Each structure stands twice: as C-alpha cells, then as structure tokens.
C-alpha cells in the first residue's frame, strides 16, 4: 500500500517537473483577440461552372489564398480550411485589414505568357535576384526581434522584383479558364522525376499549341503567372517548333519531387477555378485594445479563485489545504497540456480554463463531503478517506462525462472561439479527474502517515466533536 502511494507521489512530482519544463520552454499560443490582429473568414462561392465546393476545389482555392497572403508579407499568417466551403485567414498584428481584404476577395488570375525575345540572358539574373530577396525576407520574418522597417523594405523590393520579371513577358490570349485540369504524376521509371500534367479545353489547346510553337527551341520560356506572380517558367523543346504542343495536354518536368509537383498542380488548379471568394467575416482587434479589459477579467477571475482556495481551507481544514495544493498542480498540468497540444488561448478559452478549475474543486468537495459523512458514521480516519474517494468516484465520473458530452457537441459543431472554449474545458475536465483522484488522494494519505496530522478534528471539526 505504502509502496503504491510512494510510486504515485513520484509520478506526480515527475509530472509537475515536466509541466514546469514545458511551461518555461514553450510559449503559449495566444489568439488574435488577446494579441491583436485580423481574422477573416472567406466563403468560396459556387458558380455555374463549379456547382459544388469539393475538398479538391477548396484545397485549390486555399493555395491561391496562401499565395496572396505571402504576397502581403504578414509574418506567421495562417490559412486554414473551415467547414465545407470556408477558409479562415489569420493575420497577427494587422490592425488595418483593408489591404488584405482587397487582395483576398475576387477570383484568381492565372495567365500563360510568352517571354519577350531578347530577354533570355536577363531572366535568370532577375530570378536569382528574386530568390536572394525571398531568402532574405524569410530570414527577416523569422528573426527575433522582428525589424519591422527592414521587413517592410524587403517586401517592397520583392514586389518590385516580381514586377520586373513580369515585364519580361508579353501577354497571350491563354488564361486560366481554359485550363481543364492539372495534376502531379509520379515518375514512370525508377530514376525519373515527378511531372505536372496540364490539360486544356479545345480552344485552350489551340492557343497553347500556338504559344509553344512560337517559343519552342528558342530558349525563351513560357511564363505561368498566378495573380501576376511567376510560379513556373518551363522551356519548350525544339522538336515542337513546327506544330507546337498539340492535343491540349502537356507535361511540365523539372526538378520536381512529389511535394513540389503537387504544390504546383494545386496552384494551377486554384488559378483555373472560376470561383469567387467572398469575405463573410472580419474580426480585427487592435494590438493594445481590450488588453486592459482582458487583463482585468483575468485578474478578477484569479482573485475569485484565491477566495475559493481560502474557502476550501476554512471549510474543509486539512483536506481543503491539500485540495488547494492539488488545484495548483491541476492548474499547472492543464496549462502545460494546453501548450503541448498547441491550444490557441483566446478569451473564452481562458474563461473555460477558469471554469474547469471550478469543476476540479467540485471533485474535491464531493470526496471530502463523503469522507466527513463516513467519519460521522463512526468509521476510522483511514477507512473514511478510502470510502470517501471510492464512493464519490461514480458522481465525479458521471459529471465529467456529461460535461464532456456538451464539450464534444461544441467541438464538433462550433467554430473559432466557441471551439477554443470547448477544447480548453474538455482538457481541463480530463486533467481534473486525474488530479482529484490521484493527487488529492496520494497527498491526503501521505499527510495522515504523519502522526501529528492524524486527528479527525483536522478533517471535520465541529461535527465529529458533537458525535464524540
């Protein structure tokens, strides 16, 4: 018996140390409502040509949106799919989302351009310059602390360089709406590389043949532009100089692996889709706005919790004190779980956390009330505590599961803030079952192994005296 207690104690201490390490090493992810930024929800609209938004369509649109966001150069921007036809765009630190809203709405523009004669030498130089700038930009974006001014400068340079490259191409009639499909194809042999297959409709096939005939064998490239940015620049082999690539199907080969071939195919598909994107929700919070109000709410909640801790000691004496320790361990473990799971802490999320602490208190209250009753019924201290835990467990489990059912419904059907709240509450409830049953129990048995603490008065002051 004591061996088991000692083992559990070691487990608890190990968990606490691990939680402390996690909390000190990993930063918590704060939601945009806490640190400021813009969150946009985009709805992908159906059209006659695309009557249904399939996951494949959504994926393609997502890649287009990601491309546009990259163009904005917001660091740590996130694009996620949400539901069947929505995309969630998070732009941390953006307090004026007008620019983002402008570039995000609207339909993608995919164009196939021909390189101008006489620019064969210039193109690789410009591309290398762009690659250097992009590398520099990504370094600046990940640097700590972020140098906003340098970052803004480099972004402007990138845009200018992209425009420079676009100038090397002249337009053709071939645009994305002529593209029927694009997909990645695995290498035929063991040694080959991945390819991207593009298929055009009849008119597109003719235009493509014309375009490729003009540039075949010249060393000039075919420029594929998505939203006016060059995403691929293949050359056309000399053998097609007579007729161009006919039949409406072509393969782009290069140094593709499965990943990059697939990325390009998705970008092409996205560009070809005639689906407009509408911004249906915009939630923007200035960087310092509400920080005061939020801080006040959190402090108020914490203040209330301190009162709860005091109440527990006052009412339940020694077990109350132990429950308080267990609650502190609970709060630490839960917070560490949030950080580990990568829960984004939003305001309702924190409210869920504070509430789950209330639940954790409830588990302890159930146990101690039961222990008290058993003491009043004349059982020994040890037996009372044992059966207090044993009998209260079914109530604790039932209440935890009913709360989890409500959380499950929210996680399943809710979105955004609502889901954040449900996830934090659910994690909290799970951890609370563990701490109430393990921590409180182990610590309580540990304390009654100390003779001077082994007094019923410390457990249920007045009532026991009355009985004696």
């Amino acid at each position, binding site marked *: 018996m004591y061996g088991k207690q000692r083992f559990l104690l070691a487990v608890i201490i190990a968990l606490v140390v691990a939680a402390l390490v996690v909390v000190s090493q990993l930063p918590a992810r704060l939601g945009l409502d806490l640190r400021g930024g813009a969150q946009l929800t985009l*709805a992908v609209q159906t059209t006659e040509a695309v009557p249904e938004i399939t996951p494949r369509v959504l994926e393609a649109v997502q890649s287009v949106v990601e491309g546009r966001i990259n163009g904005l150069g917001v660091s740590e921007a996130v694009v996620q799919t949400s539901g069947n036809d929505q995309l969630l765009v998070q732009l941390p630190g953006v*307090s*004026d*989302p*007008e620019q983002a809203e402008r570039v995000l709405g609207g339909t993608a523009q995919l164009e196939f351009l021909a390189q101008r004669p006489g620019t064969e030498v210039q193109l690789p130089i410009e591309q290398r310059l762009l690659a250097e700038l992009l590398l520099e930009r990504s370094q600046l974006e990940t640097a700590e602390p972020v140098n906003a001014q340098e970052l803004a400068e480099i972004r402007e340079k990138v845009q200018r360089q992209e425009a420079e490259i676009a100038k090397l191409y002249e337009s053709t009639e071939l645009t994305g709406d002529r593209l029927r499909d694009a997909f990645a194809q695995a290498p035929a042999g063991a040694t080959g590389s991945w390819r991207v297959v593009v298929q055009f409709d009849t008119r597109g096939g003719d235009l493509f043949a014309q375009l490729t005939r003009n540039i075949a064998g010249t060393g000039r490239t075919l420029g594929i532009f998505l939203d006016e940015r060059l995403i691929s620049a293949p050359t056309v082999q000399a053998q097609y100089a007579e007729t161009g690539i006919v039949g409406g199907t072509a393969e782009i080969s290069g140094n593709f692996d499965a990943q990059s071939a697939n990325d390009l195919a998705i970008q092409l598909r996205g560009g070809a889709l005639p689906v407009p994107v*509408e*911004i249906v*929700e*915009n*939630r*923007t*919070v*200035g*960087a*310092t*706005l509400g920080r005061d*109000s*939020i*801080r006040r*709410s959190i402090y*108020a*909640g914490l*203040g*209330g*919790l301190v*009162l*709860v801790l005091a*109440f*527990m000691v006052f009412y339940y004496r020694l077990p109350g004190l132990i429950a308080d320790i267990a609650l502190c361990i609970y709060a630490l473990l839960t917070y560490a779980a949030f950080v580990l799971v990568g829960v984004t802490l939003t*305001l*309702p999320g924190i*409210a869920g956390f*504070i*509430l789950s*602490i*209330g639940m954790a*208190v*409830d588990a302890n*209250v*159930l146990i101690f*009330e039961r222990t008290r*009753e058993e003491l009043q019924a004349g059982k020994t201290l040890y037996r009372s505590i044992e059966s207090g835990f044993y009998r209260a467990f079914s*109530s604790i489990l*039932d209440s935890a*599961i*009913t*709360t989890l*059912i*409500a*959380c*499950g*419904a*929210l996680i*399943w*059907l*809710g979105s*955004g*803030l*609502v889901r954040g709240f449900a996830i934090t*509450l659910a994690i909290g409830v799970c951890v609370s079952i563990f701490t109430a049953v393990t921590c409180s129990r182990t610590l309580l048995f540990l304390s009654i192994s100390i003779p001077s603490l082994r007094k019923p008065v410390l457990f249920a002051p007045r009532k026991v005296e009355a009985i004696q």
Partner: protein
Amino acid sequence: MKIVVSKIRTWTWATSGLLIAVGVLAMAISWMQFGAPLKPGLDFAGGTRLQFERDCTQAQVCDTPIDLAVVRQVLTEQGLGSSSIQILGAEQQGLSIRSVPLEPEIRNRLQSNLESELGAFDPAQTQIDTVGPTLGRQLLIAGMLALLVSFLGIIIYLSVRFQTDYAVLAIVALLHDVLVTAGVFALLGLVQGVEIDSLFVVALLTIVGFSVNDTVVIYDRVRENLKTHGDAGISEVVDIAVNQTLGRSINTTLTTILPLLAIFVLGGETLKYFALALIIGFVAGAYSSIFVASTLLAWWRERQMPALKTAVSYGEDSDLLE
C-alpha cells in the same frame, strides 16, 4: 439544517413555473420587437461594428469629448444614418458604431471621413467586426444544433447509467435552467438592450454540462439510498439524498460562482454578460437540482408505484413498463 424538499414542492414548483412564465413572456415580447426570442447581436444578425479610440499622443486631438452629432452627420452623409452610435470611455474619446455590413472600401472611407472630423485614431485601439448575414445564420444554427446534440447525448448517457425516467427528468431540470437563463436575458434585452452573441450560446452549453452534474450527484445518491433503505417511501429517500448532498451542492455552486462574480463585477466588458449568464444558469441549476429534479423524481415514482408493484410481481424490471 435539514430541509424536507418533498413537503415544499408545491411552492418550489410554483416559483420555477412563475420564473419560466415571465421569461417566456419576455421572449414573446422580444419576438414581436426583434423577430427573435432574444435580442440577436452582431454574431447572429450580421453587420459591422467599428470601435475607434482617438490617438491622444497627438496634440489637441483629445482636448474635447467626441461630439455625437458630428459622428451622426458623417454617417448620414454616407447613407448610414440608421447606424447606432455609442461614445465610450470616461474621457469620451472612444467611439463605437454598429451598422449594416460594410464593404472594405466603404468602411475605409467612413474611417477617413471620421478622422478628418474628429482627429486621428490610434490603430492599436481599433476594433473591426464584420459578420455577413448568412454567416450569422450559420453560427446560430450551429449553436442550436450543438445544444440539441448535447441534450441527446446526455439523455443517452444517463439512460445507460441510470434509467430512462432519471434521464428524462434530468433533461427537464436542464431545460428549466436554460429557460430561466434565456428568460432573464430576454428581459435584459428588452430593458437594457443587452444582445446575445456566440459567447451566450457557449454559456448555455456550459450551464447544460454543470446543471446535469448537480442533478446527477443527487440522483446518484437516490439510487444508492434506494438500495440501502429500499423499504422507505421514495419521497423520504429523495429527502435524505438531497440533505446528504446539500453541503456539496451549495459549496460547489459557491466555489464556481465566486470567480464568475469577480469577473462580472470587476472584469472587462467582453466577458461581463458571459459571466452573468453563467451565474444565473448555475444558481438556477443548483436550485432545480435540489428542489425540482429531486421532487419530480419522487412524484413520478409515486405515480408509477401501483404499476411498479404489479411489475415486480411479474418479476419484470420497472424499465420495461414504458
């Protein structure tokens, strides 16, 4: 202290009935006024809410409070005269505007027009919320669906863990708590213009979880007592169970409400009504578990008693009677 809940059940049921009736009446009135049982906020009705704060680091910007008439005029010029405007803050340097959903260009024009009249705004203090009308409806449907799904899930779980009549009565108690909370907010919506948002739906779902907790703890005890004092009448068994769990019911409600009360009184605007909804729901939850769910169970079982006896004589489980 010992309370005999079965003796006062006429009174406690009447109190609950009255509370719910007032709430339903308020919802009916607000249905006529707003077309919804509760006053829908931005999240559900759709629209744009803009919140600005003057940039007081610039000279002379904050010398005078913001003039409501000036703001109203700027809005009317842009055809947004029907928007609601609020001046915020003790120094009256903040501004909140609620309007129909605005396109980014229109919103930007409005902002620059306001800035040329009122002085520069601090971008770090700006808040923009735009919810499209279709999205609002989606959010509402998702919320209601979540509520229904959790009801169903709880009924199924409790039917498995207890018996069907426990499960149904627990849901009755739960509906009571949800109705009381919704009723109070319908009243607040009529009297103070309090609107409900996504957080309110979250609050309702949390109330669902906690309210069932309270009821389950008492039912758990009733079930246990039925095994040990099976010979006593059901009302007596329920009374004993309620008194045995009374300390727990009060203490748990108290410890959960303390932090919420602190958030309601001292906390910021965003969480204020969320905390209030939870407080009302939890108090109603404790009340309904102690006085309503318990006595309903006793009343129901008493009604079933004669039938139950015949069932026992046939050696059947009481569950099979329905």
